[in-house]
């Protein structure tokens, strides 16, 4: 494992990337992944060593032919060593096939485990952290970085393993021919070490910048491709192609800068090759001259050293692949090795569906508080509407009660149990938040619904759909509930997607449900369909509705009015209208055009 490249430099716009593992942590994580496969690893290593060792027999066999010729033993004596060379080729080929297959198989298994662990932890990350880093960071890690490490597992790692083995075994074999050959061959080593050091020192920063540039390119492509419909509508294609071009050229420029470094690196390696080879040849000349070695041995030594060129280059060239794979691995491990979300020691069960918010403060950034000491009690099965202008803190309050964010001050309890004592597991079963964000997961409609309840039967799925009035269109889909939906498949309308979200709520069946503008995105026509669906989905649950449509407020048990982070009014619709405060103003604006 190479030194980890530091990619945590601050990004523009106050971004803060997700954690990146240190080199030591990365090594430890790989060790942990390797442990269950250690026997496979041992066998793999043994087969690879055997394969490389057998292949090394070719040079002495060729030297043998030289000696036979010099000794004038006749052409028949050449046949034996030549046949052995062929046998060596067959055996080495077989061992290589098995060894490589084992090695890559091992790497792929570790990688699969790692990316699964990554997704597991990534989905457990607090939302604030993901948003601070930008969604592209997670996406780039799970697509780009996983691909880079995968390429390394298939290419650089086996190359490095074979080259390393060949180098070590060849040097041993040269020493076995005559110790002086080994000593002069090592003259090349200081040049190589110096070169490798120089390269890592200079290439590291370039690769770090290259990764940032590639992340930026990825983000831009996601932004552009994901918003293609909007780009077309607004005729922004030229502008977006320019954006992609700019990001892409920056990445290209940095890659080429890295290439220039790499080629200078090779020039220095060529020098090492020449110095070593000349030394071995001069030594052979002297040793043959004083009769301490045969011409065949000198030949074998020279051929051995010459045959090191390939493996040394291939080992050193993989430095840059290893550098970028190491950086990618550190970025994956950084997330994959985050501690699993903790569960509290002794868990209390919520007694009912009541919600208590006590003196809750919240700020996403320390200098911009969003909520200032909100107190709110909601009884079990009560329906409360949350009303206020945009930016009043309604969504924040909803997310805090749902346990998505943790308040910076004050406490929230569900059914008499604090959110912290409840623990994430139980909190998820107690409260479900349906947000204004509609996302239909790629897969079948049934799969999407089963995210809420994995063991739901077909009948339960249909019942949930029917509760939210979606069974009609669901049955009308080309393959019913087995129709592939989501991005790239059958597109559901915003209303349908929201009905789906409500159906998931019904399936999850929590005692407390929070709907945050869940009807708003559907447009006004869809909103009415959804309002009816929401009413049915909330039956028997405690419901907190973030309402923009005033009808939702008018029919709720109580209305809570938020204004710039403070709870300013609370009561039944009629009382608040009569009181003539903020709510009354909102109501008047709403009803003015409706009478």
């Amino acid at each position, binding site marked *: 494992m190479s030194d980890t490249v530091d990619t945590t430099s601050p990004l523009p716009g106050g971004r803060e990337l997700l954690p990146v593992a240190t080199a030591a942590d990365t090594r430890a994580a790989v060790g942990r992944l390797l442990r269950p496969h250690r026997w496979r690893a041992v066998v793999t290593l043994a087969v690879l060593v055997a394969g490389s060792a057998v*292949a090394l027999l070719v040079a002495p066999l060729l030297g043998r*032919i030289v000696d036979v010729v010099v000794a004038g*033993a*006749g052409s028949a004596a050449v046949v034996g060593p030549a046949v052995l*060379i062929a046998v060596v080729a*067959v055996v*080495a*080929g077989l061992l290589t096939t098995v060894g490589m*297959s084992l090695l890559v*198989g091992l790497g792929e298994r570790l990688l*699969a485990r790692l990316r699964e662990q990554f997704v597991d932890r990534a989905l457990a990350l607090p939302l604030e952290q*993901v*948003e601070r880093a930008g969604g592209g960071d*997670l*996406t780039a890690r799970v*697509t780009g970085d996983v691909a880079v490490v995968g390429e390394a597992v298939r290419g650089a790692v086996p190359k490095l393993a074979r080259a390393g083995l060949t180098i070590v075994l060849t040097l041993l074999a040269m020493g076995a021919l005559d110790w002086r050959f080994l000593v002069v061959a090592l003259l090349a080593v200081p040049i190589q070490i110096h070169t490798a050091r120089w390269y890592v020192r200079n290439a590291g920063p370039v690769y770090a910048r290259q990764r940032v540039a590639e992340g930026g390119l990825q983000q831009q492509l996601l932004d552009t*491709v994901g918003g293609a*419909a*909007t780009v*077309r509508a607004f*005729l922004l*294609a*030229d502008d977006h192609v320019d954006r992609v*071009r700019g990001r892409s050229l920056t990445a290209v420029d940095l*890659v080429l800068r890295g290439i220039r470094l790499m080629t200078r690196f*090779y020039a220095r390696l*060529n020098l090492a090759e*020449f110095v070593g080879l000349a030394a071995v*040849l001069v030594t*052979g000349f002297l040793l*043959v*001259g004083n009769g301490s070695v045969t011409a065949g041995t000198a*030949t074998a030594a*020279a*051929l051995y050293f*010459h045959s090191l060129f390939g493996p040394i280059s291939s080992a050193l060239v993989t430095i840059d692949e290893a550098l970028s794979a190491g950086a990618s691995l550190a970025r994956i491990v950084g997330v994959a090795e985050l501690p699993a979300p903790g569960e509290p020691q002794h868990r209390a069960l919520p007694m009912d569906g009541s919600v208590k918010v006590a003196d809750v403060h919240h700020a996403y950034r320390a200098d*911009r508080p969003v909520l200032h000491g909100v107190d709110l009690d909601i009884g079990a099965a009560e329906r409360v509407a949350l009303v206020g202008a*945009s*930016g009043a803190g309604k969504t924040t309050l909803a997310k805090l009660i749902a346990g*998505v964010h943790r308040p910076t001050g004050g406490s929230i309890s569900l059914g008499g149990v604090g959110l912290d004592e409840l623990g994430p597991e139980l909190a*998820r079963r107690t409260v479900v938040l*349906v*947000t*204004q964000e509609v996302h239909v*997961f790629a897969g079948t409609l049934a799969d999407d619904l089963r*995210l*809420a309840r994995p063991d739901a039967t077909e009948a339960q799925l249909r019942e949930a759909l029917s509760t939210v009035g979606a069974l009609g269109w669901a049955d009308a889909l080309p393959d019913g509930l087995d129709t592939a939906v*989501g991005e*790239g498949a059958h597109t559901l*309308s915003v209303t349908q997607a929201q009905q789906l979200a409500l159906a998931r*709520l019904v399936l999850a069946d929590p005692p407390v449900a929070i709907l945050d*503008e869940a009807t*708003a995105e*559907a*447009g006004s026509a869809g*909103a009415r369909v959804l309002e009816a669906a929401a009413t049915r989905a909330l039956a028997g649950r405690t419901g907190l509705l973030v309402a923009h449509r005033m009808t939702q407020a008018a029919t709720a048990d109580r209305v809570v009015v938020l204004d710039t982070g403070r709870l300013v009014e609370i009561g039944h619709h009629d009382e608040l209208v009569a009181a003539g405060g903020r709510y009354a103003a909102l109501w008047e*604006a709403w009803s*003015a*055009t*409706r009478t």
Partner: protein
Amino acid sequence: MTTPDPVPVTGTAVLRGAILEQRRDVALSSLLAAGQQAGSALVPVLIGVIVDVAVTSGSPGLLILWIGVLAANFVVLSYSYRFSVRAAERAAEYAEHDLRLRLTHRVLHAGGGADAGRLSGELVNISTSDAKRVGTANVVVPFGLAAIVAVLVSAAVLLTISVPLGLLVLLGTPPLLLLTHYASKPLERRSEAEQARAAHASGVAADLVAGLRVLKGLGAERTAVQRYRRTSQESLVATLRTAQAYAAQGGVVETSSGVFIAVVALVGGVLAADGAISVGELVSTVGLALFLQIPLSTTGWTTIEFAQARASAARIAAVLSAPPAVPPGAGTARQPVRGGLRLRGVTHEGLHGVDLDVAPGELLGIVSPSPAIARALLACLARETDPETGTVELDDVPLAGLDPAAVRAAVLVATHDAVLFAGTLLENVTATGAADITAALVAAAADEVADSLPDGVDSTVGEQGSSLSGGQRQRVALARALAADRSVLVLHDPTTAVDSVTESRIAGALRRVRRGRTTVVVTTSPALLAVTDRVILLDGDGVRCEGRHADLVESRSDYRETVLT
């Protein structure tokens, strides 16, 4: 509008184009790489010469001379390599860059159709990983050619040493290359399947990350993880099969080149034993035979990389060749655009035989109880699609005869799900036009949004506006639509996430800011409908009724039911 219309291409054409467009660098690199390979081929020859000096003459002067020649050879091969790699990588990177831009052009092409049926994560993967693999062909070609040169140089040296040996290498190499080629055939298919799986697995992961907020709200993270694990394992099974195939191919190449060297050594050894060649020449021969492994395995690598590049080129070609959602029209709108719209007998998805007229400069409200009908209408007006039957006309010119980009230069359909782009609030609003930005911001009440943000209009909005609330996003999107200042503006539910006081303000400003130009608002919001000149109630059977909002509220119970709840 500078984008050329999509033309169907094959994967082979994509690959060939990627190489030919960079032919200068590819040719330069090939030439230098050949020089480098020739130099490398000379190294074992020089080793043989020096061994010969040691065995036969033992003269130190000759030794120094030949070491000098070796040094000169190293200088040549080193510099050739340096500049050949630089040229090859330049060619690879720019080919990749060009493909990426072509893909972006195609996806964003006004005719649409390339993003249908594909996850955006998948498209991004194609524009990065697959483009890179195709670009790599520009490294593969010079080094593949150089490998062939190396084989030829070796053969020439061998021929001068001995004709039978030279012939052996010349005649033995092609069958070896052929064998390598056939060993890589099944790989091409597997590589394709593997890349498709990998794209799918990373697509699923990106999809889950994109839906993270929803998963969090639902507490479904664990189920999602289990689902990803299944996909990941399926992908693993596919990659393992490919890995075995790669390993087997590597083994076949290694074995066959080893056997080949054995044959060369045998023939050379017999010739030397018979005194037909010298010991030094024998050493050169075996040195060359060993050296030949490198160019020979380079050809193996070449075939693998080419197989991958071809698979990737096919995937790129599939996107580039995706049929447009609407056929390109040559015509442009009548200038100046007056902004009259006419629909005759339009039937499309939810719409049935709709006849509709919008006068230039009119502010029209369209109410539809069904979101499907609204969507179909918007798609037809934006020419995202052409209606199954019937015509849509702008100033008496049928849209179907117009370039879709020309339609959108006159008609802006601001759909409900339009996204904001990374950048500042102001950049989003000004991206589309040069109209009075301040007026647009104020009319959409987006000035209040700016006031509530840390850096005002210069605050960043996050990817797809993720750092704004729903109501804030909607107001910025509306400001952008107003700032675009099109002759015809179609707004779809622009204020659903906005509180009622702000909505009334927006409704009041809309009329003022769009004065003299045609505006259609597809909505059921009474606040917006109240400011329109005329309202049309549209259902599955066409136009059910029309009139002023206040009159319809009074006279039509079905309208009341749809608009006032």
